[in-house]
């Protein structure tokens, strides 16, 4: 009798061993990229393809799963396994895949509509479970594929095709949601800072457990320059706060500004000599300070980017596998004895 506890794939040892030397080109598929010219998605794809060769994972052990939306076309362009699923549900597929194939490295590509509106529930639950998935949420604050309606991250009052006199609803903060749901890795980056983007994707991919990356991504057709006020090269140093582990929270072209706490409120200090700035510790288990940082909205504060939180916790799929292993500790069970388990009687 055959009994199987894992999917019978024979592809040798999975990670690291005899890893081929990859280049960016190995991760470029033969598909023509069909995003609008100038879209921020191009930058994210390029940095992903640049990061993947150095990740230490075989190409065939990578899976990209997406939902629906402009960002969700992403898997077609990466030369590995890809699944372009249905609206909002990428995380559900990723969860089932990861639980049954823990050795795979699974990326979930989503957007502000896909991940926070129709798929919002799944995002919460994948985070609290701490599945080892890397979730990249392209936040352009607009619905692009359906040609320009407001999204759950659009600012209140925004004029769009479906809100000709302005929206009447407040936006969600993806970072706040991730922290509230207990995500073990939470980061934000921008499409226009390719170095920071690549580093953030790399750190997220190497995190064991759920890693959530919000990317501020420009939709140059329906919501152009949504983030330009702080992401433009000329102003970036003064308008954004680069979070670095173990370093003081300082910004400005000459590091002349800092962030410190006044009670529970963060405040900006404009003094190059001030040493009261907070020191960033992304490994702090308690998410309160990270949540305070997540609440720093432009223009009152500089926009924090970088890793808000990176803590260790057991993953869902490991705990599930441990339960199965524990149940099997007694040896190979016999199905016949399962059928005959409990009360039986014999008719002669």
């Amino acid at each position: 009798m055959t009994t199987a506890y894992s999917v019978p794939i024979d592809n040798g040892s999975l990670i690291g061993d005899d890893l081929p030397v990859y280049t960016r080109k190995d991760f470029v598929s033969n598909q023509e990229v069909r995003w609008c010219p100038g879209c921020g998605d191009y930058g994210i794809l390029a940095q992903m393809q640049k990061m993947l060769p150095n990740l230490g994972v075989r190409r065939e052990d990578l899976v990209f799963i997406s939902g629906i939306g402009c960002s969700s076309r992403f898997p077609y362009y990466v030369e590995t396994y890809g699944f372009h699923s249905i609206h909002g549900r990428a995380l559900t597929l990723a969860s089932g895949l990861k639980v049954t194939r823990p050795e795979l490295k699974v990326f979930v590509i989503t957007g502000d509509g896909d991940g926070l509106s129709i798929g919002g529930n799944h995002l919460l639950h994948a985070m609290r479970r701490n599945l080892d998935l890397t979730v990249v949420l392209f936040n352009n604050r607009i619905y692009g594929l359906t040609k320009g309606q407001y999204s759950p991250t659009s600012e209140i009052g925004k004029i769009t095709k479906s809100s000709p006199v302005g929206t009447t609803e407040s936006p969600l903060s993806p970072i706040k949601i991730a922290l509230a749901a207990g995500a073990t890795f939470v980061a934000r980056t921008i499409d226009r800072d390719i170095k920071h983007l690549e580093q953030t994707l790399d750190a997220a991919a190497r995190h064991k457990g759920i890693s959530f990356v919000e990317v501020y991504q420009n939709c140059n057709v329906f919501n152009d320059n949504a983030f330009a006020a702080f992401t433009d090269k000329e102003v970036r140093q003064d308008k954004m706060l680069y979070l670095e582990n173990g370093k003081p929270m300082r910004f400005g072209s000459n590091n002349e500004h800092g962030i410190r706490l006044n009670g529970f409120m963060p405040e900006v200090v404009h003094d190059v000599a001030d040493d009261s700035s907070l020191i960033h510790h992304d490994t702090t288990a308690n998410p309160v300070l990270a949540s305070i940082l997540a609440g720093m909205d432009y223009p009152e504060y500089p926009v924090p980017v970088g890793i808000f939180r990176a803590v260790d916790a057991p993953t869902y799929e490991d705990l599930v596998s441990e339960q199965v292993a524990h149940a099997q500790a007694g040896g190979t069970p016999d199905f016949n004895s399962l059928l005959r388990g409990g009360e039986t009687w014999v008719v002669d």
Partner: protein
Amino acid sequence: MTTPTLTRPEQRVEELERVTIRFCGDSGDGMQLTGTQFTRTAAVYGNDLATYPDFPAEIRAPTGSLPGVSGFQLSFASTEIYTPGDAPDVLVAMNPAALKTNVGDLVETGLLIVDEAEFNAVNLKKAAYSSNPLDDGSLAKYQLIRIDITHNTEKALAETGLSVKDKFRSRNFYALGVILWLYGRSLETTTRWAEQQFKRRPDVLDANLKALSAGYNFGETAELFHARYEVKPAPVKPGVYRHISGNEATALGFVAASVKAGLPLFYGSYPITPASDILHELSKLKSFGVKTFQAEDEIAAVGAAIGAAYGGAMGLTGTSGPGLALKSEAINLAVMTELPLVIVDVQRAGPSTGMPTKVEQSDLLQAMYGRNGDSHVVILAPQTPSDCYFMAIEAWRIALKYMVPVIFLSDGYVANGSEPWRIPDFDSIPKLEWKYATNKGGFFNPYERDPETLARPWAVPGQAGLEHRVGGIEKSSETGDISYDPGNHHRMTMARKERVERVAREIPPTEINGPDSGDLLVVGWGGTYGAITSAVNRARGRGKKVSSLHLRYINPFPPDLGEILSRFDKVLVPELNTGNLVWMLRAKYLVDAVPFNKIAGQPFKIREITGKIQELLGESGPYELGFAPASGLSGG
């Protein structure tokens, strides 16, 4: 404890072929347990039997209230039987509310056993009785047996030191003891079970066994009953037997399929009545490598199952009607990506929330057509509790071989009902076929179909050279790339359809109950099997040319079905819906099949189907179910 062995010499013993008993009481009275224990005793004795639990959706409706009544009906016999009986011969009512909601079903002159202590002013008022039915003559047509179960139990447990409230909880064991005595059954099966069940609660065990014994002794000494009854063992096939409910059999069948396929089983589910027991059962079977995932919602449950299937595992999801509706978009994703997926729908009364604990068969057309686009899936329907085991294996055989989603349409009657089951030989079940795609070098087309089954290759992640992209968007049959080509979409749609149709090639010849031609063929599916078979057998007993067949394969239909239908003058299709299967049969075979529909949240009674058969054969006038039409509506 002592099991009395003496029967008073004057005690008459009557032999009966079949007895139907219904235990009913407050949902906190333990009636499901009482019924289950009597069932086990009868099974071990060798009777054939069938059971039907009927309980409220409320976990604890107010004590003593009409909505809080829970019942368990069982029929046991010395001959082969197919249903838990139309009407109880014996009704055990633990309080006025239980009496009020159930006594109408009791056969005239039936045995009515009540706990008279519970017929007090408060409980009578809760049950909206203006006078005590035990005293006002309204029960004159039944054999009323009044037993002070409450106080007798209290007295039997006087020495235990338990509180009055705790003593009250053993009343159901007292009642069980009385009934076991009445049918000359030993206390052994229940005693053994209780010793296991209450191993960690010796005080509870002691109380329950004392109450059980006291009830038995009461029957022996009280001289309330005119006779004891004997129902001899049924002539059943030799073998090792156990009890099985439909949901248990379903779970076991899926694990059996996993073992036979050599692939791990993944079950994604969101709790929903009446499917949750499948999740409970599978979550206990981790030693077989089963991974269960209690998802955040129905969509996540099916999505996770699809993810597991994509990764090469056996992705399974289960739900009831409202959940099937929520899953429909994701099921279509599995249709489009052509992944093996099994979806269980344990149907319940709808629409919307409907009546969650009540039986209905009204999801067939949803399973068939309830998705956008031209979406074809395989649909199977088990017909008895134990049949769930075999059809669960069959569902996986088809899903894996044809790379196709299969909907397993169970229903509340099959799922919650139970029957004795001759444990089948597991080793004789063939291995389930499947194959992963392998890298043969060169270009890999994820839609290169198997010429026999039209299945596409199962190319699971982790294999170098097979990297590819799938998704909900139409793909080219040549390359697997996105394609909006008109001819391609036509070809792909037809291929997905034909792949389902080709499953019919392997469907075994349809079994006909009775001669293969005649005046009337009764066609059914799912949990109506017992009632239809019994009614048809009775009609043949009257010399009528009536046969029946029960469809376990609904999409595709068995290849011989059209020809069989044509050999009968009339076709009758009884269903617990407004006409699902009959609609499909009429559409496909242009046969003037007659619908017979009941939408009452209750299974068919044999006599109802008999009534309709008699109408169609001209034995009687038009037959109507006993439900008065709403004013202004036709009776239909």
